């Protein structure tokens, strides 16, 4: 799989449309990518690839891909995709992204693009040399509540941002779950942060959206394992990141329920919060009623918003709209950028900062 292909003679930026897309790895997350790729008019789904021929064939049939492969190198040679989606377990990303770049394709890759910032920078350098793009999936950035909070910040509604809380609770230790399977240990157990490495990129890029650009960070990270399961390296992270005047708390737990992915942004004027797993938006800011009436107005408005969110939540459940809603927006903007040769919505700087922050959280000097 790591054999580099000699395919450098293709034009620097493929402008033909539709773009020929291929997917490597047809597991659960591929469903979201393939649904987009099979419907978007700018895309021709040229191939899917999985180590399991049956799974590849299933994905090809279901999403009407032109071909199914079980060997990624052969797929790159025969299908000649313009864009390759790398959706395999993280430990395989570096080799597969390299292969795709060397075959002359842009790459959309699931997080984390690489296990360390140094490995990411190798890929970045290779992409620059080949005149191609790597775009890491930062899908939750494009979920509506996050976009709404960013708008509030940009409009000055919250004042200057001072605190960010990003908190994820997931039962990764649950018996019978994919991460707790001792008979077939999940490959992410071997990543630097263990299974938490599967999720840490999400937490970091969301926190970074509200931290000042260019500032140095002060980091303290408590990586813990509270459970007794031998399989896990860590099952809990509680980290503080201070950048200029902004304090960010990055929290992952497998010991609290129910599942949540909560983001709270606090500024000098007010604060806003959401939970991406149960989408809503709560905003507490000074209202026109002045200091006396603002608390009451905030309660009334947020109460109405919560009622609306519960109705939307029910509708989303029935209509099978998942927390991956941002992925569609992310892919839409990514393909628009690739077609028009413009910077994609997730830039190298975004990816670099996220992977540097992950490194910083794992550094010995940051450990609490």
């Amino acid at each position: 799989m790591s054999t580099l292909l000699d395919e450098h003679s293709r034009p620097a930026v493929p402008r033909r449309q539709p773009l020929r897309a291929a997917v490597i790895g047809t597991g659960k997350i591929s469903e979201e990518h393939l649904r987009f790729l099979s419907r978007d008019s700018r895309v021709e789904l040229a191939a899917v690839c999985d180590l399991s021929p049956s799974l590849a064939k299933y994905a090809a049939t279901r999403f009407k891909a032109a071909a199914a492969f079980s060997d990624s190198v052969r797929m790159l040679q025969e299908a000649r995709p313009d864009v390759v989606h790398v959706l395999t377990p993280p430990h395989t990303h570096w080799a597969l992204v390299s292969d795709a770049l060397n075959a002359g394709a842009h790459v959309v890759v699931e997080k984390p693009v690489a296990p360390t910032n140094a490995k990411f920078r190798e890929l970045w350098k290779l992409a620059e040399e080949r005149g191609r793009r790597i775009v890491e999936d930062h899908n939750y950035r494009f979920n509506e509540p996050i976009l709404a909070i960013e708008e509030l910040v940009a409009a000055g509604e919250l004042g200057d941002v001072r605190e960010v809380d990003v908190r994820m609770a997931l039962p990764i230790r649950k018996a019978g779950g994919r991460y707790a399977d001792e008979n077939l240990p999940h490959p992410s157990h071997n990543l630097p942060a263990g299974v938490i490495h599967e999720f840490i990129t999400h937490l970091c890029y969301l926190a970074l959206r509200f931290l000042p650009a260019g500032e140095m960070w002060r980091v303290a990270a408590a990586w813990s394992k509270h459970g007794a399961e031998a399989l896990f390296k860590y099952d809990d992270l509680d980290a503080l990141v201070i950048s200029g005047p902004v304090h960010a708390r990055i929290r992952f737990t497998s010991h609290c329920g129910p599942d949540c992915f909560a983001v709270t942004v606090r500024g000098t004027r007010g604060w806003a919060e959401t939970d991406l797993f149960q989408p809503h938006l709560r905003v507490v800011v000074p209202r026109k009623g002045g200091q006396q009436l603002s608390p009451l107005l905030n309660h009334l408005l947020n109460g109405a918003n919560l009622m609306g969110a519960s109705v939307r939540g029910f509708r989303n459940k029935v209509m099978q709209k998942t927390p991956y809603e941002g992925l569609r927006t992310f892919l839409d903007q990514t393909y628009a950028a690739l077609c028009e040769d413009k910077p994609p919505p997730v830039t190298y700087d975004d990816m670099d900062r996220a992977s540097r922050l992950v490194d910083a959280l794992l550094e010995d000097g940051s450990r609490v």
Partner: protein
Amino acid sequence: MNLLVTGANGFLGRHVVAEALRRGHSVRAVVRSAGDVPRNGWRPGANFSFVQADLRRRKGLSDAVAGVDAVLHLAAAKAGDMYAQYGGTVVATENLLAAMSEARVRRIVAISSLSVYDYLKMRSFSVLTESSPLETDAFDRDEYAHTKLVQERLVRDHATQEGWNFVILRPGVIYGKDNLWTARLGIRGGKVWLRTGAWAKLPLAYVENCAEAIVTAAERAGEVSVKGNVFNLIDDKPPTQRQYARQLQRRMSPRPIIVPVAWTVMRSLARMAVLTNKLLLGGRAKVPGIFIPARLHARCKPLRFDNARIKQSLGWSPRYSLEEALDRSFAVEADGGAAGAGEACSAAQDPARPDMIKGAA
């Protein structure tokens, strides 16, 4: 014969191991956890050994398979999303077949399911046989039917290409102690059962009868009338939903309350759900499984079943009638279990309790 049993720790697998040992075969049981062995009362010895392996992982499988005369492939995923079931059923089978090729094992009995048929295409009260139409668009059906169809195709193609002796068995509702409920009866609450239909026959296969058929298939897979064939595995005289529900109710304490819902009502509700989804929600809404016509028909359509082919070709005949099977399933056992004990297998089971109905058979 030296037999390898995948899924040996499952409900059916434990009985297959016991039956194979009872007939004097040597058994190598594939288990995912070594803890499964003492839990089942198995003691490694001259006729019994076990190998710890997860079929979803290719590595080491050839060694596990090497030296056996036949593989009884029972392992499958019955729950989880499409990807979990692909892993546990399809990828597992891909790996097993590759390992068999490497180890030059040339006989396999694969356990599929009656769920692979296209029930929507069948007329009510028609007879389901091995010639009935198979599901062609399993995406609308369910993960289990889809993955079982793929698994069957894999086994058939691979075995044919390699010139192996293979048999595919499609058991009906496998039932026995602790596994007496079936989704074909309807919806089960705590004390109330919603019985969706009354006259539909239940294609039951008592687990001990089933185990006998599977081991027989392994023994006779080389015979002209058996090899390369597919057989539905169903007991004689299938009861109706009403008869089976009453049998269970009669034996249980406290007795559940059975609320009947007619098949025509269920079918109408499913049609309305489909129409509403299509007209008002663009076909994108998630509808409860019981209101998806393909699933509803697979569970509850009134059909008749025939087991002539397996009886004739395999020479198998179900040892236990429904009454006897239920008596064995509900009996408080003192003699070490209904499955019969082999040299290395006590097959000791917990005494059956009247309230023990769990799992979907």
